[in-house]
Structures are given as structure tokens and as C-alpha cells.
């Protein structure tokens, strides 16, 4: 029983060790979405450009997996990502876009200049849907399966080297 009296002290030591470590290595604070494996939260976004329809949660449960790309015309890494998305589109991937904190004319200009891999583009002017998806920045992409369940979250731009990974994840989501 004597030893039991040292338990609080041991817990404290462990806690202090953890906190000292955290203070010494303030890691980056990217946190993955908690929604992987969960249905897409309900949302309905108006069209970001007049030429394409907007995006709502029900559009995502279309029976086959889709890639949802969160982007913005003001986001520099997004420009490089378009090329890779075009390639994915050429391989038969359906891609929807969510334009975050953007204006219609800017989005249209972005698409005209760098390419347009998107089937639907919703406008998320206050990042509300972005936040509800558990995304913290642009670009970010989600793979949503045919029943509207989020299967994979890709933080940051999809690079050329990520293409096999994305295709494999889409295959798994079937």
C-alpha cells in the first residue's frame, strides 16, 4: 500500500515529461480530419462560377467515388495542383471543387488560365463548409465514396508523385 501513495507523483512526472517535450518541440499543428470514415456533413453551396453547378452534400453520394478538392484562386500551390488534377481527370476521376473565400470572376479567371478539372464547383465564402469537413487550409482534398462517406483526406497539394496513392485510394473506395 505504501507504493500506491506514490502513484499521483508518478502520474505527475509523466505529465510533466510530456509537457516539457511539447514545449521543447512545438510541432506543427496540422490535424487530420476526424471525419474520415464518417458521412460528409450536410451542406449546400451555391455555384462559384455561373458556367458550372454548385455543390451540395447530396451530389457526393452519387454511387461512385469522387475527389473533392478544396482550392482558391488566391492560393499559389493550387496553381501547380491543377495540372495533376487534370491528369487524374484524364484517368477517369470525377473531381468537384470547393472554392474558399473567393469571388466568381477570380475563380473564372483561375480556371481559364490554369485549366478546369472540375465537374461542379461550390463557393464557400466563409470557409464554413471547409471547417465542417475538418480541413484547415488550401489546397486539401477528400476522397468520398459512392455513399457519401469520407474515405481519405489529403492535406496539401496533390503532387505528381501522389497520383498512384490517390488512384489506389479511389479504387479502395469503390
Amino acid at each position, binding site marked *: 500500500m505504501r507504493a500506491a501513495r506514490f502513484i499521483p507523483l508518478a502520474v505527475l512526472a509523466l505529465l510533466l515529461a510530456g509537457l*516539457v517535450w*511539447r514545449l521543447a518541440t512545438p*510541432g506543427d*499543428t496540422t490535424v487530420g480530419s476526424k471525419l474520415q470514415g464518417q458521412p460528409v456533413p450536410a451542406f449546400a453551396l451555391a455555384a462559384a462560377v455561373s458556367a458550372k453547378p454548385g455543390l451540395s452534400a447530396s451530389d457526393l453520394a452519387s454511387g461512385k467515388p469522387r475527389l473533392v478538392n478544396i482550392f482558391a484562386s488566391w492560393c499559389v500551390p493550387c496553381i501547380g495542383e491543377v495540372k495533376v488534377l487534370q491528369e487524374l481527370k484524364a484517368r477517369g476521376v470525377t473531381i468537384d471543387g470547393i472554392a474558399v473565400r473567393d469571388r466568381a470572376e477570380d475563380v473564372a479567371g483561375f480556371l481559364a488560365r490554369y485549366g478546369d478539372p472540375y465537374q461542379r464547383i461550390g463557393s464557400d465564402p466563409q470557409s464554413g463548409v471547409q471547417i465542417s469537413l475538418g480541413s484547415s487550409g488550401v489546397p486539401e482534398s477528400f476522397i468520398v465514396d459512392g455513399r457519401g462517406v469520407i474515405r481519405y483526406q489529403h492535406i496539401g497539394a496533390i503532387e505528381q508523385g501522389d497520383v498512384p496513392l490517390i488512384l489506389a485510394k479511389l479504387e479502395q473506395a469503390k
Partner: protein
Amino acid sequence: MIAEAGLAALWLATGLAALQFVLMIGVLRSRVAAAPAMRPIAVVQGVLTLIAFAALLLVFATTDLSVALVAENSHSAKPFMYKVAGAWGNHEGSMLLWVTVLAVAGAFLALLSRRTSERTLVAALGSQAALALGFYAFLLIASNPFARLNPAPLEGRGLNPLLQDPGLAFHPPTLYFGYVGLSIAFSLAFAALLTNDVDARLARAMRPWVLGAWIFLTLGITAGSYWAYYELGWGGYWFWDPVENASLMPWLAATALLHSINVLAARGALKAWTMMLAVVAFSMSMVGTFLVRSGVLTSVHAFSIDPERGTFLLALLAIYVGAAFILFALRGATLKEGAPFELVSRETGLVVNNLLLSVILGIVFLGTLYPLFVEAVSGEKLSVGAPYFNAVAGPLALILAVLVGLGPLLAWRRERRPVLKRLTVPALIGVTALVMTVIVAPQMTILPRLGLTVAAYLAAASVLPLVGRNPLRTPLATWGMVVAHLGIAVALAGMGANAAFTQERLAVARPGERLSVGPWTVLFAGVSPAAGKNWTAIQGELQATRGEGVVTLKPETRYFTDPPTDTNEAAIETFWNGQLYTVIGKGDDSGAWQLRLWWKPFVTLIWLGGALIGFGGALALLGRLWVRRRRRGAAGDWRKARYA
């Protein structure tokens, strides 16, 4: 001048705290029984911190922009109330408030304490001064609230608009009274372990402090939960966010302490356990302060990360909690347990209560810090959210709620009567509720269903201690217990109803469109501009109806100018059977607006329950203090003449 006066008061208070600490060492090392100077010094120290805090309030009230803290956190165009509240809406000011509460609590302990032995009181005041000393050093070295700017800027940088809300202006001080009030329990436990004075008398001295701090914590958490609900515009009341957990953990420990202290006070048992809880409760407050102030955990409460301050606070935490736990480990074994009790007794009930509360505390502690440890060990990032907390803590909380109905019916020492029989009616009411939920909502998930069942049972069971008693002759403390336990049932009912019956509608709508949510049909009549003192807004007009009568709701998106931020002001309409909760987002170019609508049946019961729990605590505290005064009066105390 005012700022300098505040700083001087802070330095003087530091000096007195150091003197108190030295006095304590002197008394404990010698055979001297008392130090007559201790009480007045503690009182003066409290008064000095009050002067320092008043100085801070004054510079904020007059928007003295030559004070760096004011320039960074205030603005001349801000409403007066938020100018004053701005004093504690920032790091330095809130730490000053913290240490002020600490010192003033010490002063009150010095003024009011008649129950403990003089030696233990001296040790307790010395321990309180040692706590204060560390936080004074933290303020003076690492976060001086009175630092000047030269030249003074022409205008301040404003205050986070989320904080310009009456709920939030008063939520942090309320929580701080609770957090820091527990320091007295900590100091008394520390002192009693030092002087080998752990007994029923100490428990009775400690009890009002624990009760008072616990009331503030309960009300602070309830108010914070309601603030998050209506101000953040997410429609949720609890997010298991690290900062929320930081306030929940001391509450759980204090709730356990509140119950075990009764066993110590009445029966002289559970000595070591109660002392440990007293230490743990305040330690959890300090851990909470550290987590919030250092920003080590990612949280919606985005306070800035500052490694230097973090290290300082961590060192304080290590010293104080470490010292208390070392003392506990060395002295705990020498405590002799008091009167024995049988398996079926009030004591056993309270032990089970304590075990369950401690396990829930462990679960919340683990869930809050687990991401940190996983990342430290494996480098993997993860976050622990509501699914874990609800799934693990939820069932335990329900078991506890079931036992809350039983515990107060048990007699001290041993129970020979068939107590379970008295629970027949509550059990039947619970079963009826269960059957009704199956009929009304067969699809409901298990946790809300059980929540509603237990709520119905507990609502009936909690009033049983009053049955067959003359209400006027029932002690106030018993009334308090009944009200607080009833509050648990009420809050549980609200949580269950909210989880089970909430209806949500997210839509992009144009003026003139009709939307339906739950029993309501909502007409989106249009939008119009609105303006306040330091903000402009787009205000939506929604006309809601469910058959008869029309209710108009006006949710807003506000744009604050300093600093430029926009916030959603939800429009909430309360009815006897629930709340209609509406939020308007931004519009798009085609004239459509994002609308979020919720119908939340009986959600208000959550906070009504929280308020009842706090009110029950207040009744109990009043009862305890009143009994104490009456006893003292009967003994022919000098106070008798004064109050006659």
C-alpha cells in the same frame, strides 16, 4: 501614475507573501504554536492585490493607451462594459486576476478561519503565500500587465469581437473564482499533512471553501457552455475541446472532493483519499491554467503560444504539485483511518461515487493529453474527439446518475432497511420513459435513449430524501443536495432530448423562399443592413411559424472594424419546448444566402440543470454557514452581541 501604483502594490504584495512563507517555516521548525502576525499580513497582501487589480481596471476604463496592455487589447470606440472586461480578456490581465483571487482567498481564510488549529492555519497561509509568490514572480518577470509604451499610440488595437459579449465578459472571472478557490483546499490539505492534523475538524473547515469554489466552477462551466452555444453559431453546447476539458477536470475532482469530504467530516474516514483529492483538484486547476495559457494543445480557444511563459508556468506546476504529492506520499501512510463502515452504507455509496468520478476524470485527462503522448512517443498526430469521450465517459456518467438516486437514501455506517424498495416508483417512471422513447422514436441511438430514461428516474429519485420529512425542518444542506441532484436529471434530460430530437437544415436560400425544419416553416423575408458602435452587419429576417402565430428572428453577420473580423450572431427564439436557432452566413453574387436552421427540443434544460446544480450548492453552503453561526452564537461567542 495609476499603472505605477498598481505595479508598486504588486511588488509590496510579493514582499508580504515572502514574509508569510518565512513565518511559516519559522513556526514549523520551532515549537511555537502560532504567529500572531500571520493573519494581518495575509489580509494586507490580499488588499494590495486588490489595489493592483483596481489599477488595471482603471487604466482600461479610461483607455490609457500609454499602457502597452491597453493599447494592444482595447480601443476608444469600445462600449464601456467591454473596456472594463478587456482588463481580464488578455493574458497578463487574466493572470493578475488569478493571483488577486488567490491572495484575497488567503485573506478571507485568515479572517474567517476558527476551526483549524492555529499551527495548521499558519501552515495553510504559508502555503497559500508560496503559491502566490510563484504567480507574482510570473507576472513581474514574464508578463507585466503595467508595462508602458513610449510614445503612446493614438489608438488601441481592439479586442477580439468574440469576447465582446456579456456571457464571455463574466465567464472567465467566474471560472477563476472556482479554480483559485480550490487553492484553499489545497493549502489546508498541504498544511494538515505537514502538521499531522488531518481529522474531521479540518474537513469541516475545508468544506465551505470546496463548496464555494465548486459553485463557481459549476456556474462558470454552464455559462461557458451557453456562450459557445449561441456565440460560435455551431449549435453545439460542448465540444470536448482541450480548454473545455481543462475546466471540466477540476470540476470532476472538486465534485468527488465535495462528497468524500462529507465522509471525513461526519465519520473521520477516507482521510488519505480526501487529502489526495484536495491536492488533485487544485492541481487540475493549475494544469488547466497551464494548458490554456501556454497554448500547447490545439484548441478552438486560440490563445497564442509563448514558450517562455509556458516554461515558467510548467516550472510552477512542477514545484507546487510535486511538493504536495511528495508530502502526500511520505505522510499519507501515517494517517489513521477513522470509524469503519459496512458494505451497505452511506460511506460505501460515497466511495463508489468517488471511484466513478475519478475514473471519468481519468478518462477526460487521458483523452485530453493522449494526442500529446502519442506524438511524443511515435511522432504520429491524432486528435481525440467527442466519439471517444461520449462513448467512454457517457455510460459511466449514466451509471453514476443511477447511483445518485440511491446514495442519499443510505444511512451512515450501516443500512439495514430495504432501501431498494423506496426506488420502486422512480424505477417505474424510468421504465415508462424508456417505453415512450421506443414508441416515439424507435430509431434513437442507445446513449440518448438511456439518458432520457435515467433522467426521468433520477428526477423522481432525487426528491426521495424529502419524502416524509417536514420541509421546514429539513436542513438547508439536504435541500441543496436534492436540488443539485435534481439538476443532474434536468441537464441529462436536455442532453438526451438535444441528441435525439434535434433537426437541422442547411440551405442556400433567396428572399421569399420557405424552408422547413422540424415542426417549423421558416420564410426568408429578406436582408437589411444594421450598425452598432464598432460594427456593421447584414441582418436577415426570418418569419417562423408552426401553425399559429409568427415569430420573427433576425440573425446577423457582423463585421467588426478593429481588428477587422466577422462573426455570426445567431438569432435564437426560446419556447417552452425548445429553441429555434438560426444563423445567416454570407450571400453570393446571385442574391442567395446561406442559412442554418436548427430546431432543438428541450435544449434549454441543459443549462437550467447546470444552474440548478449550482443553486443546490449555494443552498448547501448557506445551510452549513448558518448552522455554524447558530452554534457559535449558542456558545456565547463575542459575535452574539454583534448580531443580536
